């Protein structure tokens, strides 16, 4: 158990700034997820907290005690590495016992160590591998061993770097649930790094979205999903990605896709260029709900996604991606009408293609204060 407060940490590799003045606090017992694409600085952030990199600036404190200049082995912080970092010359059992035998995580009898190993490996489903060497087990099993080496020991803060990334889809979902159960039951303080938005949504108390070494937004899963601060955050969550289409605000209306979308502009939205964000799962084909925006188009591609289907619908001079139930039986080249509830249409500031812009609000209501987006 512990509270973490991080102030202004900065790490450069040559001319490249990996993380740039990051500030954040993680509360006692909180599950804090850092979400970001590869190269955003996620691992560097964790290693800075653990004391494994020499930071240029900033401080790290746990329970109010400044650890910035403290060696990693005095910090009482546990970390699971994405590369597993299992000792190749030790068996799974010896790897798991390692943190308990150093003398700095408490003192354990041989029986206690064995007991802990059994408990942890049962949960992780690797209890039959104890006497194998890391090279003799699969990547997924290695990753679970690495996770086990962290979960087995007491620590103030647990740092997990993409701990599920090397598991196959099925096992990943199972282990995600196990982790959530562990987190719910044990009240540990955890920082979890991932590029998978579903892991973030499933596990997090709060999510911090990281890009180019800076936090773009920190908030609860619901906040991040419903009110993404900019188009980058909106794109980071959801698969397929949110549809972002250029639109024009003029004469009191927002128009896009060669007039296929034509809706009244909400109060407070000034005239000019904007971008609309429509999530594929919010666009419903075939059902005409009164009050919803109707968009006419033609199905160009229909692809099966399990029970759902993914449609690429040509609309005006562009196209929209739509995810819907396969029972809707929409075929390629069919004409469809898509409907979406007005508050579900996100409005972002206009910008060049590839440039991320701030969210202004929804097509229903413009946010009173537009928060400034760090660039």
């Amino acid at each position, binding site marked *: 158990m512990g509270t973490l407060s991080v102030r202004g940490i900065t790490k450069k590799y040559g001319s490249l700034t990996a993380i740039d003045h990051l500030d954040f606090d993680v509360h006692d017992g909180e599950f804090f997820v850092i979400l970001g694409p*590869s190269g955003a600085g996620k691992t560097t952030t964790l290693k800075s907290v653990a004391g494994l990199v020499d930071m240029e600036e900033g401080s790290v404190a746990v329970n109010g005690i400044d650890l910035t200049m403290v060696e990693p082995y005095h910090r009482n912080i546990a970390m699971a590495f994405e590369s597993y970092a299992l000792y190749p010359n030790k068996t799974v059992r010896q790897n798991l016992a390692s943190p308990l035998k150093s003398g700095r995580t408490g003192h354990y009898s041989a029986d206690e160590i064995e007991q802990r190993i059994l408990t942890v490996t049962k949960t992780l489903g690797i209890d039959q591998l104890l006497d194998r060497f890391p090279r003799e087990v699969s990547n997924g099993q290695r990753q679970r061993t690495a996770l086990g080496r962290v979960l087995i020991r007491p620590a103030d803060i647990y740092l997990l770097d993409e701990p599920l990334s090397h598991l196959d889809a099925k096992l990943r*979902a199972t282990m995600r649930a196990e982790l*959530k159960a562990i987190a719910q039951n044990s009240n540990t303080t955890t920082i979890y790094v991932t590029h998978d938005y579903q892991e973030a949504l499933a596990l997090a108390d709060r999510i911090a979205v990281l890009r180019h070494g800076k936090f773009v937004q920190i908030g609860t*899963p619901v906040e991040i999903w419903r009110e993404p601060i900019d188009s980058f955050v909106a794109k980071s*969550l959801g698969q397929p990605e949110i549809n972002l289409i250029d639109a024009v605000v003029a004469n009191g209306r927002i128009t896009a896709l060669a007039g296929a979308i034509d809706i009244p502009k909400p109060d407070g939205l000034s005239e000019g260029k904007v971008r609309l964000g429509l999530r594929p799962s919010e666009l419903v084909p075939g059902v005409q709900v009164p009050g919803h925006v109707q968009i006419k188009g033609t199905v160009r591609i229909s*692809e*099966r996604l*399990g*029970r759902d289907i993914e449609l690429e619908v040509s609309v005006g001079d562009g196209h929209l991606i739509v995810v819907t139930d396969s029972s809707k039986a929409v075929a390629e080249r069919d004409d469809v009408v898509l409907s979406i509830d007005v508050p579900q249409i996100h409005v972002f500031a206009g910008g060049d293609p590839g440039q991320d812009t701030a969210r202004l609000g929804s097509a229903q209501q413009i946010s009173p204060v537009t928060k400034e987006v760090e660039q």
Partner: protein
Amino acid sequence: MSNTVLTERKEAALPLSLSKVQKIYRTGPRKKGGVEAVKSMDLDIRPGELITLLGPSGCGKTTTLRMIAGLETITSGEILIGGVRVNDLPPAKRNVGVGFESYALYPPLSVRENLAYGLKARKVNDAMQQVDELARRLDMTDMLEERPAALSSGQKQRVSLARALIRKPPVLLLDEPLGHLDAAQRQRVRRELKLLQREFGYTTIVVTHDQSEAMTLSDRMAVMDAGIIQQFGTPDEIFDDPANLFVADFVGEPAINLLDGTVVRDGDKVLVNVAGGVLETSVISAKDGQKVTVGVRPQDAFLAPGVKGTVFVYEDLMEYGLVRLDVHGTDKRVVVQTVAGAKLRSGDISEFNVSSHRVYLFDPEDGARIR
């Protein structure tokens, strides 16, 4: 590339067929013993069709592709491309384009030279012209002078695809074409690949281990395991009407829930008793008292009285929710997909049910589907 209008008429596509194809890797000394990677495989692919070979690693899918490409000898059986037996032809004479999993670009050569390599090796006169033309059509003119190491994995993938296409092969073979891409790139490249394949009309075989990739990409897909095609059909057939337990389990995510059950015939109704409750099924051939494995897809299950369980965890994924129930009376945990924002907490008691036509029954012994 997705906006490029492809105007060229369809190239002549050829049918492809495998008949009793077998591959044994000799391992033992003096060529005794060996591993049978592909077992007596039959496969008929129509001209212009895009099919995927889907399966876990080691199922023989890549070996099959390599045998078609000519990179691997065929132990027995035959492969026909456009009706011509190609068993003994070297790769270059088979009229196939190959996209390798790790791209296999020629590292010392620029993208332009990579594309021209096959043409120049055959002393084609207008090689550079053809390269320029294809590069324009694939919208990759600006990277022609780069070397492979300077490209992102998405770009490498496109170069690899372009190189496979340059000789306008009637058959295109792609090994894990989306394997090294991140989720966003995968979505885009998949779409590009599909449109390109439709425009060019090449007979295409894609090897993948990713079931969602196979589902979205294929006209038809062959699900393989242990060197055998378990089922060959459209994505709809594979998902809605799996031939056996392996196919049902391998395709679909989250994976299908499997429970032990006993069939009870009650007048017109066919019921399955599972620990924790009873499910109704439309499988009319099931016999009274028969032991079965019951399959329920998380997407088909819904929270309603039926089978009882305790909530292990509930995950709200915003697009939908997933609840994991520890089914009472068993050590099984089932996953049920719900709408987003369901009010569920660990430890709650809940129940799930499923429409009768979505209950799949399998023989617990050999995994065969009971219809």
